[in-house]
């Protein structure tokens, strides 16, 4: 992967290495200046090996997720780029009909027929002038035609192959493009009159060997050719992207075969410098090619560079996508690191107290933990990188199978640069978390630490002197601010002043980075470094601001004020994230303030938790105003806020579950003592229990949410509406147009003597749509500066308008029913309808795709919208008025802009091809009918599919991809599982003496072990159940909003199998993590345990 977020990966790597060096140097400084602190920290590592392993697991997860994302990105880029170099080979630029837009790649997803062929004489002039240009070593005119092919001897048929006709006299510069699979170069001149080259993909599909006779059907007429040789899959041998089956023959014979003498479809240009190096000058050469063609209807495009750039963008998107999906896991991982260090500090509290007592300072403790953490860190990140590669290899293997049918060969590839970046990000992230944790735990009361008793409460007692107004004012002041002396005020102000200073440094760093980026390689590195430093200052400024405010203000008041500020900003910007975040913060602040005033914790935090849960659920369901905008960030914010709220409710009320557990225990009296201790400990350690519940809950929430939303989205297409009232779609081959499908079926000879003839009687109705050429057809919102973009455009036919069963999710004002829309379109050629995907929504949208302005996904009615359609081949433009938006269900198959027959003809003249929609009689099988139609119209090369089958295949593919994503997100579960393990190991150590006592008073080994297992189960179960419940509640609210699908879903679908599988796995894994420590606990020698201090 060469770029991320628009920045060079090399620069990012160098900058991160600098930051890594700073982190390592910090620990190096400790080693040199305070060797004893370093050694104290490091020598703790081998003390408990099992615990060390768990800590490494906890610390490596962030790196694992990042390394996996980068490896996938590298692989995707490598695979697409490799295919681009392999297929385009010598071709660097392509000249064809001008498209008036950036998207004009002739080999990727566009039309198969050139909308504006180049007259051969014109092409000859072009090629001659091109070849004279500096940097160009070849220019070749070619004809490209789709054609059905069969290999009668082997009984194999392929409805679509691309036949390339190449001018043999102008092959200079492209000699290496046509070579046999054995690597032997061959020339088209070597082909006899009825011979043809077959590419590898077509040979495999049709089971062709050299010497086999192939039948090509042109205009329904068979033409036989002998396969001279099997050649490599290249664009010049008909292998496009996504459609690899191809054939090649000399240009003149191809022209004669298709009756297209005197014209070519395009000219391909090869630059000096070979397959890869030639691309470097592509932009400059493209400009000069276009200068040569200035004023004509044709233009050049840097095709190879476009594909390679697009590969880089795709891989960058994949990395971002996977990192974003992994954010929950990364957040949970950082929580785990914090928890681990808090627990380590708790274990060593007495030691730390002693260390402080003999004269060391707080920062020495920070150095001690930082050193230990860094040693874990450098090892854990390396393990994380290696495991990330392993995980990505598994994922890529699955992806390779999924993408195989899309003609993309995915091969694992990871660059050392990506590994260095993953490692550095992992180490730096962990270093920052460890440093923060160390700083937090360094603040201890020496006496309490030595005696291993809780720290005394902070000295911010409620003032009780003064009465009346004065007393109230004193209490109000106490509620708002902490300082009681000028010295304390100045201290707080001093910290606060640092925040704007750092903010100024952020601006300076970013401005300097912006100024020097792109000036040179060194400038690029320096710019990224400045960006990282600026980012660090930004984080530091934010933390400093919070610290300063926390120094001066009481936490509750501060949270309420910040919350109120966010609410105002959210309303001002009309953004839901700051508004909802503000509500959350304000309620949290209110709870803290009430507790500060002396209100009991349980009712306050329970009420706050429930209130926040209700708020988030109602807001997600659009049940409460205001209606604000929001994107993917709301998913994270809602997840974290709801998990936090539920965790508060659970940890402050879990003792109520004690009754339930005890009743459960009553069934087996022997379990009661185990249950008693199993529940009591987690309840007593609220912070630790809460963190663990939150970690597990967060990851479960993300997984269940993803799974439930996807399942409900998938169910949308499990509906007859998705088929639009038809059963079979028949796509014709552009080389063999079919004007009347019924007639063609009736006239066609039986496919073979033995095959069952297709019975046209099963057909109830046939309607059709005209397809505009994908290369030249464009659409834009009307008015202003028009930005024409590619989007499928179909010409409706009277039959389709009358016979379709498509429904609308939104209609223009004045149209009261779906029928009214269709009637209007039949009557007024200026009207049109569009699919739901052309209406932009929230989430991952392709900014390069066409989208309609003026209609929201939630609209049920809208003011008619004017669009402009354009055909670069004819040069015509026309305005049309949009009056309907198809349902999401139907948009899966019917994606595009549907215009009247008159508007189509007047703009595009003729269709590239026609798609026929067949409605079958009751009881007829769509798959059987599709196979029958395809077999009967073999000579025409039609492709017939059951619409239901297409939908099911699409659903299966998207589900498979989503399972893959869920599997990736599931890595985060290991964070929760590791947390359960870490805590279980720690508790055995912490409670050694208590275990001895329990054994002394009569707890059997089994009772001790069960108690430990139940304790971990209790925590894991709370996290799992809370994550599942929150996700299902939120998903229920979301799928019933108009944002998901107008009108909401008919019924809410819960993917229980997936949920139970994931929840069960998490629970079992947590149990397994507890088995070893529980066995340790049960086998502790009693007398030894009682002596333990």
């Amino acid at each position, binding site marked *: 992967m060469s770029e991320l977020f628009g920045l060079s990966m090399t620069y990012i790597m160098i900058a991160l290495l600098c930051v890594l060096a700073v982190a390592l140097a910090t620990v190096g400084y400790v080693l040199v200046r305070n060797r004893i602190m370093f050694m104290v920290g490091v020598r703790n590592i081998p003390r408990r090996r099992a615990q060390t392993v768990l800590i490494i697991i906890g610390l490596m997860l962030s790196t694992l997720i990042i390394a996996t994302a980068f490896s996938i990105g590298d692989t995707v880029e490598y695979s697409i780029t490799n295919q681009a170099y392999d297929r385009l080979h010598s071709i660097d630029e392509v000249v064809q009909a001008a498209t008036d837009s950036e998207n004009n790649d002739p080999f990727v997803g566009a039309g198969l027929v050139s909308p504006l062929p180049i007259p051969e004489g014109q092409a000859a002039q072009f090629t001659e002038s091109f070849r004279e240009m500096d940097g160009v070593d070849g220019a070749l005119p070619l004809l490209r035609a789709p054609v059905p092919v069969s290999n009668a001897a082997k009984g194999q048929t392929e409805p679509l192959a691309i036949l390339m006709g190449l001018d043999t006299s102008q092959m200079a510069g492209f000699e290496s493009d046509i070579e046999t699979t054995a690597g032997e170069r061959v020339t088209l001149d070597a082909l006899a009159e009825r011979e043809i080259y077959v590419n590898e993909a077509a040979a495999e599909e049709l089971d062709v060997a050299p010497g086999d006779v192939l039948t090509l059907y042109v205009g329904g007429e068979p033409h036989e050719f002998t396969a001279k040789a099997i050649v490599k899959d290249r664009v010049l041998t008909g292998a496009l992207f996504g459609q690899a089956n191809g054939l090649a023959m000399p240009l003149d014979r191809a022209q004669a075969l298709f009756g297209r003498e005197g014209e070519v479809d395009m000219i391909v240009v090869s630059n000096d410098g070979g397959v890869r190096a030639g691309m470097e000058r592509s932009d400059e050469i493209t400009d000069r090619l276009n200068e040569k063609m200035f004023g004509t209807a044709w233009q050049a495009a840097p095709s190879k560079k476009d594909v390679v750039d697009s590969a880089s963008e795709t891989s960058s998107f994949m990395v971002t996508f996977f990192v974003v999906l992994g954010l929950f896991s990364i957040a949970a991982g950082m929580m785990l690191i914090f928890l681990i260090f808090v627990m380590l500090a708790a274990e060593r509290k007495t030691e730390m107290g002693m260390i402080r007592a003999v004269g060391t300072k707080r920062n020495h403790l920070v150095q001690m933990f930082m050193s230990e953490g860094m040693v874990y860190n450098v090892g854990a990140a390396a393990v994380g990188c290696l495991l990330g590669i392993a995980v990505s290899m598994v994922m890529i293997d699955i992806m390779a199978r999924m993408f195989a049918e899309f003609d993309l060969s995915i091969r694992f590839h990871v660059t050392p640069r990506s590994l260095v970046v993953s490692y550095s990000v992992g180490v730096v992230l962990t270093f920052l978390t460890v440093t923060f944790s160390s700083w937090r735990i360094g603040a201890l009361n020496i006496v309490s630490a030595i005696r291993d008793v809780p720290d005394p409460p902070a000295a911010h007692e409620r003032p009780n002197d003064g009465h009346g107004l004065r007393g109230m004012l004193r209490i109000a002041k106490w509620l708002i601010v902490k300082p009681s002396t000028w010295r304390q005020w100045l201290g707080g102000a001093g910290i606060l002043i640092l925040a704007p200073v750092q903010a100024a440094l952020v601006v300076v760093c970013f401005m300097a980075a912006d100024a020097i980026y792109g000036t040179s390689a060194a400038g690029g590195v320096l710019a990224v470094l400045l960006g990282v430093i600026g980012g660090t200052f930004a984080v530091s400024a934010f933390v400093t601001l919070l610290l300063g405010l926390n120094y001066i203000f009481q936490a509750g008041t501060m949270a309420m004020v910040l919350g109120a500020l966010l609410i105002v900003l959210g309303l001002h910007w009309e953004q839901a994230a700051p508004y909802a975040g503000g509500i959350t913060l304000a309620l949290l602040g209110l709870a803290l303030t009430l507790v500060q005033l002396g209100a009991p914790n349980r009712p306050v935090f329970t009420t706050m938790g429930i209130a926040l849960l209700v708020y988030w659920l109602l807001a997600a369901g659009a049940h409460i105003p205001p209606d604000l905008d929001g994107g993917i960030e709301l998913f994270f914010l809602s997840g974290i806020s709801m998990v936090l709220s539920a965790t508060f409710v659970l940890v402050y009320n879990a003792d109520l579950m004690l009754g339930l557990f*005890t009743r459960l225990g009553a069934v087996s009296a022997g379990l009661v003592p185990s249950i*008693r201790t199993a529940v009591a400990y987690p309840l007593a350690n609220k912070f630790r229990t809460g963190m663990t519940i939150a970690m597990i809950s967060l990851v479960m929430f993300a997984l269940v949410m993803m799974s439930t939303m996807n399942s409900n989205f998938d169910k949308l297409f499990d509906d007859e509406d998705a088929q639009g009232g038809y059963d079979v779609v028949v796509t014709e081959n552009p080389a063999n147009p079919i004007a009347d499908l019924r007639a063609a079926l009736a006239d066609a000879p039986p496919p073979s003597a033995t095959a069952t003839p297709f019975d046209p009687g099963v057909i109830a109705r046939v309607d059709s749509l005209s397809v505009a050429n994908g290369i030249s057809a464009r659409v834009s919102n009307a008015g202003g500066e028009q930005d024409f973009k590619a989007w499928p455009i179909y010409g409706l036919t009277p039959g389709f308008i009358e016979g379709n069963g498509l429904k609308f999710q939104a209609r223009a004002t004045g149209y009261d029913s779906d029928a009214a829309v269709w009637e209007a379109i039949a009557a007024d050629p200026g009207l049109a309808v569009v699919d739901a995907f052309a209406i932009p929504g929230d989430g991952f949208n392709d900014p390069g795709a066409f989208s309609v302005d003026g209609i929201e996904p939630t609209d049920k009615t809208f003011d008619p919208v004017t669009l402009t359609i354009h055909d670069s081949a004819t040069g015509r433009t026309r305005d049309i008025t949009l009056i309907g938006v198809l349902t999401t269900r139907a948009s899966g198959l019917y994606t595009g802009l549907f215009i009247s027959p008159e508007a189509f003809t007047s703009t595009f003249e003729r269709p590239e091809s026609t798609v026929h929609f067949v409605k079958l009689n009751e009881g007829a099988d769509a798959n059987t009918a599709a196979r029958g139609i395809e077999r009967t119209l073999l000579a025409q090369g039609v492709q017939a599919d059951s619409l239901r089958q297409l939908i099911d295949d699409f659903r299966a593919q998207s589900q498979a991809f989503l399972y893959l994503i869920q599997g990736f997100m599931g890595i985060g579960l290991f964070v929760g599982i590791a947390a359960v393990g870490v805590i279980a190991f720690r508790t055995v150590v912490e409670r050694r*003496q*208590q275990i001895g006592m329990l054994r002394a*008073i009569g707890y059997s080994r089994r009772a001790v072990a069960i108690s430990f297992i139940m304790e971990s189960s209790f925590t894991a179960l709370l996290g799992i159940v809370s994550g599942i419940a929150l996700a299902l509640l939120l998903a229920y609210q979301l799928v019933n909003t108009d944002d998901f699908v107008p009108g909401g879903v008919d019924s809410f679908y819960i993917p229980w199998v997936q949920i139970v599988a994931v929840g069960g796995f998490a629970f079992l894994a947590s149990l397994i993590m507890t088995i070893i420590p529980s066995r340790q606990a049960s086998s502790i020698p009693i*007398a030894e345990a*009682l002596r333990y201090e």
Partner: protein
Amino acid sequence: MSLSTEPAAVAAQAPAVDLIIDARDVVKTYRTDDVVVNALRGVSISVKRGEMVAIMGPSGCGKTTLLNCLSGLDSIDGGLILINGEDINKMSDNKRTEFRARQMGFVFQFYNLLPVLSAVENVELPLLVSGTKVREAREKAESALDLVSLRDWAKHKPSQLSGGQRQRVTIARALVNRPAIVWGDEPTGDLDTENASAIMDLIVGLNQRHAQTFVIVTHAPEVAARCHRIVHMKDGQIVREELLNGATR
């Protein structure tokens, strides 16, 4: 007031039928890497039902080890220990645990209460592990707390109690099962003089009322002085015994 005798002679004179604890030639050796520590070197001791015995001696003489071995908390390398006539070292771990739960109570120097449970919950634990029903266990635990004058503190967690109160909770926990023997390892070691005296008053009172056997390891002469007999140990052996407070063999 006291009568000194040689330990071997005392053991030989002990009438077997009256004994609740009968230990003979008990040997316990600890091995760590290259270091071998002979903690008990053929100790013989017998205790009558209802007797209060103090074990004294310098640090490292084997007092706590002897208590741990006698109570079945630790295994022995040689000799014989009979509790109520049963050889506890021949019992399986489960049976020994059950035996401990029904026959013994423990009072430790540092209380060893579970910090996450309230006083009454701590006290009822031995009942629950013995299979007593939850409600009955709670009633008995409250009665036991009543016995040590802590009924009003039943719902408090150990961290909310003073040292003396915690030790009384420990005593309530030790007595709640009405065990035949209560083992005390420095029960007043972490208390001031006043609290220590109060705890000993309580223990002596309970011993007199319920005729339970107490074996107490202590450094404190004033604690030992409240017992019927003092057993002095040195270097893993009993070197001397004293009969006190009118006790007879």
